């Protein structure tokens, strides 16, 4: 069994009407593992489901509501902390979708607060966040130096009292990555949603989600990211998106994400390449107990994710340092 069961239920929630207990158990375990249980619960909505499944889905809906409320509060706090700076603060990912009421935000799991700010303001942003009660999470000097030098964000910070994390980004992908999306252009074209907070334009939202799905990660949690892309595509203008993707150097990635979103969540009309099929196999590698399968394939993608981000000698050094400290792909 693989995660097609979950994908089908998201695409066409009416299909769950025929599910037996075994399929429900598998569906719930997979949806939780992929952090799509809230999305699934909202997709299923008021359709008839077995008695035992109803409270599980209701709980997931309530959790999603609470998460959205808390995410918006964190955004509000960050906005208040950064107001004196007068810089554009752009919300990214889940918080942005929730703040703007986008379809991608419906039921979505939202973890940390991700914001994008101009690169030359990073120091001031860091200072103001610390004044408002955020502090560093990591004290490890290798990780800290690595973040600052090569990643696209400050090392993660956590709020002392609320225990919530914030990731402050200044570029879309790490400085070591091959593609260089134009973060400055994204900030300049961002849309104001409240006094002081912005979200990316519809086309940039797709580019950003795609960058995370295909050019950055090892595809862990990829089904959720691809669901984001699927929902965001519906709100983007196709011609404007082509142009925008070209500007960010992400054209092949955006096209591939479009084909894959269509294959899993859409009508399935687009022709897939061999590489598309390999990536899809990676995305669907999960069994009915919610456990990831196809270890070899996952490890290959883990290596590839680092390869994409770093020049080879740097990659070797980084993996070696991580390895000694006991970090291994699960």
């Amino acid at each position, binding site marked *: 069994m693989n995660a097609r069961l979950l994908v089908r239920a998201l695409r066409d929630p009416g299909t769950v009407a025929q599910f037996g207990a075994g399929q429900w158990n598998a569906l719930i375990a997979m949806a939780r593992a992929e952090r799509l249980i809230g999305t699934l619960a909202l997709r299923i909505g008021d359709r008839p489901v077995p008695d035992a499944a109803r409270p599980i889905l209701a709980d997931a809906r309530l959790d999603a509501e*609470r998460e959205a*409320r*808390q995410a918006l*509060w964190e955004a*509000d706090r960050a906005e208040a902390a950064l107001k004196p700076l007068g810089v554009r603060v752009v919300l990214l990912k889940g918080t942005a979708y929730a703040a703007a009421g986008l379809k991608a935000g419906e039921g979505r799991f939202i973890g940390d607060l991700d914001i994008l700010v101009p690169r030359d303001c990073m120091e001031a942003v860091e200072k103001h966040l610390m004044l408002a*009660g955020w502090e560093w999470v990591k004290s490890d000097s290798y990780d800290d130096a690595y973040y600052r030098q090569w990643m696209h964000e400050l090392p993660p910070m956590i709020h002392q009292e609320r225990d919530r994390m914030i990731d402050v980004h200044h570029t879309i992908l790490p400085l070591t990555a091959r593609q260089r999306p134009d973060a400055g252009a994204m900030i300049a074209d961002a849309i104001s949603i409240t006094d002081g907070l912005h979200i990316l334009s519809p086309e940039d939202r797709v580019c950003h989600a795609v960058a995370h799905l295909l050019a950055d990660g090892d595809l862990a949690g990829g089904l959720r990211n691809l669901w984001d892309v699927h929902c965001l595509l519906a709100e983007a203008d196709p011609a404007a998106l082509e142009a925008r993707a070209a500007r960010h150097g992400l054209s092949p990635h955006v096209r591939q994400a479009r084909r894959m979103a269509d294959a899993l969540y859409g009508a399935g009309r687009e022709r897939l390449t061999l590489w598309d099929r390999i990536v899809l196999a990676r995305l669907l590698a999960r069994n009915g107990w919610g456990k990831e399968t196809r270890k070899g394939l996952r490890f290959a993608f883990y290596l590839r994710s680092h390869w994409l981000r770093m020049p080879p000698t740097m990659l070797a050094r980084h993996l070696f340092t991580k390895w000694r400290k006991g970090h291994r792909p699960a």
Partner: protein
Amino acid sequence: MSHILDDMVLLYHRSSGQTHMVISPVPEILETLEDGQPASARDVLQRLLRRYDLGPADAALPEVAAQLTNLAALGLIRTA
């Protein structure tokens, strides 16, 4: 949403999901702001003086201002 216990007042702040445990004069100060209209520290003090005996107003003002700053930092009130 608030709840009075025998030795303190609990405030549930819906937007943040945080529970605050407060004692006098915080509940009384929040009560003066219940109408949602902007007010200065001096306004708050005036409203408090109408209901409570706080001693000399000059001495109480910095105390009220400091409490307001704390409440704003928690996000329970906003600086206009």
